[in-house]
């Protein structure tokens, strides 16, 4: 409440400033009095068309909150009651955003499902009025039109969108564990057909304007403009408004029909959908698919199917009611709290809290053209960074260059890039075998083999050629940065940048600072990471940093569980049904058995007993037989090109049988196995926070989910403790401690949380 008042007073300030700026605004708004009383919405009348402009103060985006909602009702009532007005255009004044969705704070502030249901019903009511408006309303969409924004847009009689990359329409509610609660579940199927509506609502995927036009989600496209009499963004919005006004007039004069000609396929689909049997089959199919993919861990998708079904089978009244009720229920679930927490965390980790670096990084050099090096190059060149990729041999370099090209070319195939853009991006890459041009590098990222002496060698070579300001970043998953920096002439410029493989798919970047790393160096690294599109956590140096360190005890447990006689397939299914995207045994194969062994050895030395569990002998024997995981074609599974279903590697049985451990029946139920894995992970994560390796629980959660695949529905280790309960977590650990010893001893911070129930990582 206080916050909203503060926002209100601030907005008054901006408003008065707007009034002072000459000409344009006042000229267009005949009713400038409206400006004086409203903060989010203003409108003016051009001829007989009301132009309603949304512009939430002090924010880059418009979100549907209480204030905006009530102002919208006011404005619409004026529009409907005015005799002068025959139609309306709804547009945002913000470049790059129509309405980005509902205000999440409004939802999280609610404590009961009923409150949330009421919010939903109010919105439903309003949007229904919009839908039934006799004066046609045209939604003019430029920029993100998501969630509630899309629901408002599809309530309007007509939609015009700019064909801009920033213009994305979608229903991402499912990603937050909720559903479209303002009539979206009812309108969307009618507008784009049931299959497409399911696709949008169940995947949450954003749809670009040109695709939206083909789907019938928007009626007209407007091309974004280049420079002219005004800056492009400004003039594009103006032009969109002009075009929207002509269509609004046309609709009011009945010269344009809001109805769209449907194509043959669409007609056939809608005919098929009129057959109850077909509909039932579709519901069944979709539900099956959802259950298979979510393992029943996410309630939102199933409820969405349910609500859509109710609307179609029992009429829209029942549909709206069901939508608002289910919306209320979902908003209160742990899953939605976890997912919303991740969403917030992700937003936080996309900011540079270290400020702008003194010198912007324009020239990047990457050492090592392996999978990681080339991956880093790929995400750099397409952001306009001049990148040198260096390797020792022409063959290795060529492989790396091909990887970058393929990555870009795949985007061309998906039509995310044009072939011309691909070529232009690819020209930002220089492949070379020597240190030519390194005197101009602003940052060097080394991604050579994980071997301290090799890293020392390249650090020395590089420091001989780079300029003073150049940052040296090491991409390593386990070698402590201070050990790498030990031989550096300028340790304040040395930092760790731990990317995750495959670099172009994994969102996380873990940045590691040593006590000697300067703040400006950190700011530089974060800046580059953000430019590369990464979600960034900044952690303190130490063996395994944060991510590898959390993963190691879990991996140790994985080996033990396998030694206790649980097969890799069974283990995989136990972990995926807990919410991990990749099964534990498969994960070892993906990481590489040799890498896992290397890390386990290193961290085992550093942390001792706490990291014990399974016997490393398992990994060593696998390595000796050449079972290195996916890269060698064999690990726990056998990998063959073009074969989708992977088979177990039968030779593993003999290794595991030879190293068999007795299982302890009271901690070996399926559930116990799952919790043995998770609690070791969580305990180590909390210890990282306790020791100051992590600065915030948010970064811990983001790192675990985006880097290691910690179940998103649990929201990360810290959210897990908050939602599952610290006491229950400690109880679990104690139980396993009794069976296995110190590996499960809960850390102090976790016990503190358990002993005072009010203590939460997220207040």
């Amino acid at each position, binding site marked *: 409440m206080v916050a909203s008042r503060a926002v209100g007073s601030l907005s008054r300030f901006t408003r008065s400033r707007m009034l002072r700026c000459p000409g344009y605004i006042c000229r267009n708004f005949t009713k400038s009095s409206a400006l004086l009383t409203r903060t989010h919405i203003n409108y003016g009348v051009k001829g007989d068309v009301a132009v309603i402009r949304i512009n939430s103060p002090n924010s880059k985006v418009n979100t549907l909150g209480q204030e905006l909602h009530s102002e919208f009702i006011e404005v619409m009532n004026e529009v409907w009651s005015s005799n002068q007005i025959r139609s309306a255009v709804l547009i945002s004044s913000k470049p790059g955003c129509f309405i980005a969705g509902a205000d999440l704070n409004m939802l999280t502030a609610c404590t009961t499902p009923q409150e949330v249901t009421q919010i939903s019903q109010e919105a439903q009511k309003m949007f229904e009025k919009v839908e039934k408006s006799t004066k046609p309303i045209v939604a003019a969409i430029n920029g993100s039109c998501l969630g509630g924004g899309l629901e408002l847009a599809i309530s309007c009689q007509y939609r015009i969108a700019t064909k801009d990359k920033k213009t994305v329409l979608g229903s991402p509610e499912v990603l937050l564990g909720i559903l479209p609660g303002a009539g979206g579940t009812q309108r969307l199927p009618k507008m784009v057909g049931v299959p497409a509506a399911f696709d949008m609502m169940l995947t949450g995927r954003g749809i670009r304007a040109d695709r939206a036009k083909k789907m019938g989600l928007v009626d007209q496209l407007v*091309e974004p*403009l*280049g420079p*002219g009499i005004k800056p492009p963004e400004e*003039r594009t919005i103006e032009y969109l408004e002009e075009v929207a006004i002509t269509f609004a007039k046309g609709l009011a004069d009945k010269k344009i029909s809001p109805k769209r000609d449907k194509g043959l396929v669409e007609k056939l689909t809608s005919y098929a959908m009129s057959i109850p049997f077909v509909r039932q089959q579709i519901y069944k199919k979709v539900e099956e698919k959802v259950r298979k993919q979510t393992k029943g861990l996410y309630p939102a998708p199933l409820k969405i199917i349910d609500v859509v079904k109710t609307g179609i089978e029992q009429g829209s009244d029942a549909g709206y009611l069901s939508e608002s009720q289910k919306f209320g229920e979902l908003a209160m679930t742990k899953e939605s709290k976890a997912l919303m927490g991740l969403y917030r965390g992700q937003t936080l980790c996309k900011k540079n809290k270290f400020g702008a670096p003194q010198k912007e990084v324009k020239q990047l050099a990457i050492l090592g053209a392996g999978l990681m090096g080339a991956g880093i190059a790929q995400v750099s060149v397409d952001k306009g960074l001049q990148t040198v990729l260096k390797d020792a041999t022409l063959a290795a370099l060529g492989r790396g260059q091909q990887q970058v090209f393929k990555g870009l070319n795949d985007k061309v195939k998906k039509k995310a890039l044009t072939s011309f853009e691909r070529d232009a991006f690819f020209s930002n890459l220089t492949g070379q075998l020597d240190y030519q041009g390194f005197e101009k590098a602003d940052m060097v990222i080394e991604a050579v083999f994980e071997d301290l002496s090799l890293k020392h060698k390249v650090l020395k070579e590089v420091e001989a050629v780079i300029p003073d300001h150049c940052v040296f970043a090491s991409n390593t998953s386990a070698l402590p940065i201070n050990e790498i920096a030990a031989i550096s002439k300028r340790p304040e410029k040395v930092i760790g940048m731990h990317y995750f493989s495959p670099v172009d798919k994994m969102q996380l970047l873990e940045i590691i600072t040593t006590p000697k790393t300067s703040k400006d160096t950190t700011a530089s690294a974060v800046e580059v990471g953000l430019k590369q599109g990464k979600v960034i956590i900044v952690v303190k140096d130490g063996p395994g940093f944060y991510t590898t360190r959390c993963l190691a005890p879990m991996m140790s447990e994985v080996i033990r569980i396998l030694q206790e006689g649980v097969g890799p397939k069974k283990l995989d299914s136990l972990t995926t049904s807990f919410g991990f995207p990749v099964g534990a045994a498969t994960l070892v194969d993906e990481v590489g058995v040799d890498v896992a062994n290397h890390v386990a050895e290193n961290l085992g030395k550093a942390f001792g007993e706490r990291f014990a569990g399974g016997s490393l002998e398992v990994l060593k024997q696998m390595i000796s037989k050449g079972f290195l995981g996916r890269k060698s074609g064999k690990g726990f599974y056998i990998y063959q090109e073009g074969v989708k279903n992977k088979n177990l590697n039968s030779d593993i049985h003999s290794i595991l049988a030879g190293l068999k451990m007795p299982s302890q029946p009271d901690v070996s139920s399926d559930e116990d196995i799952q919790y043995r894995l998770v609690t070791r992970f969580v305990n180590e994560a909390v210890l990282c926070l306790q020791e100051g390796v992590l600065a915030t629980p948010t970064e811990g959660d983001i790192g675990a989910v985006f880097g290691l695949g910690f179940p998103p529905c649990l929201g990360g280790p810290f959210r897990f403790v908050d939602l599952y309960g610290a006491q229950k977590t400690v109880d679990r650990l104690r139980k396993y401690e009794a069976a296995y010893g110190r590996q499960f001893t809960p850390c102090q911070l976790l016990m503190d949380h358990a002993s005072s129930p009010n203590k939460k990582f997220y207040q």
Partner: protein
Amino acid sequence: MGVSRTSAIWAVIWPSLRGDPEIIWSFIPFTLSVKPMDQDLRMTSLLTYTFKNLPSTSQWALRFSMRPLSCSSQLRVAAAVQTKSKQTLAKPNIRNIVVVDGVRTPFLLSGTSYKDLMPHDLARAALSGLLHRTSVPKDVVDYIILGTVIQEVKTSNVAREAALGAGFSDKTPAHTVTMACISSNQAMTTAVSLIASGQCDVVVAGGVELMSDVPIRHSRKMRKMMLDLSKAKTLGQRLSLISKFRLNFLSPELPAVAEFSTNETMGHSADRLAAAFAISRLEQDEYALRSHSLARKAQDEGLLSDVVPFKVPGKDTVTQDNGIRPSSLEQMAKLKPAFIKPYGTVTAANSSFLTDGASAVLILAEEKALAMGYKPKAYLRDFMYVSQDPKDQLLLGPTYATPKVLEKAGLTMNDIDAFEFHEAFSGQILANLKAMDSDWFAQNYMGRKAKVGSPPLEKFNIWGGSLSLGHPFGATGCRLVMAAANRLQKEGGQYGLVAACAAGGQGHAMIVEAYPK
């Protein structure tokens, strides 16, 4: 044997085929719906139909077209009285280069009288016309350069084929240049450079475009199969290749209509440009009407003296341009937008049309011209090529080139007596005029302190422009230079400014100085 010879020829032509020359089919939206083979025809007949049915009210239209100029004419007249900033642009130690004369074939809507010709036929007509007009001895010509955009694969060096056919000495080398709509500008400035550097004394420059026929290729898959077939040695190999044939191999590949880098057609870009500069449909139609009306007037008064008659084999002699059709605003308003549908502003009536035509000029070192007893028409002075963003500023070349070339020559806008700007689209011309008149644009996009100012319309394209006379891509540049030179001769001005935009986001401007009488 036959097959292998074909493949050898293919191999020779291959390089020139690799890069599709970008072209601008102004009216492609009309044609896309019809079969590729007869599209030019259809397009033209449609256009012809449109214009035929528009009542010709040139008198009224002309008066109307003058309206936009009235705003600041007094000021402009005052400026014109001022003395020139410079007496002449001659530079010490640099050869003066002159245009003795220049000619062009009549520019025709494509698909009309020239439709059965090949590009070199048309170019030959222009070259012969120049020979006839200037009586230059053939063996004196040191070099020949022609510009073209859509290359006929059989005559990829069309300059050489045309020169041989026109009776020039086979000892005179010739080459062909391409730079989209400023190809013949490039031909002329190449000639200037050759003379200035002392390599040549007498050069013929020109350009040609024949849009009635364009190379339509087999698809890449089909071409690959044909090439592989020519290499196949055994019957088995051939059969196995043929067995891979699919019907879709037969779908033809049209010359690129869109900008290669952005995949946007030029008309589409022009429509967006007009919108960015807030230029209305009415303004564009008015400007197009002005162009047609002025061209008709110039034609009627016999001012288009660069046109030489062309006896087309098997057809009547063509004596004048056939695209000039002044219409009425009401009729023009009825046309639907051609590119951005349904609300765009660029239509068939306010765009330049697909045109067949060729042009040629005779460029000499001044002392050589005088020694040969010529009375030159004009000097070719400073010139400038510019390029910018091919997406959003595709057609703003003149805006960028004009201030630069003026600065280079030490002139101001006021010194220019004859402006000849290439009119690709009404919207493009009006956008350039607005951009040149905008301090904001100059400061934010051109890195200049202030605007250069827009040219006064009473000195601007007053004998018509590409919108009305036509725009054979490769030949327009020479027409612009000759129009400027002839206007200076006729009206007594000293300096002319030629400017044009081109695909690829490029632009050109050149100062033409009248040869003192």
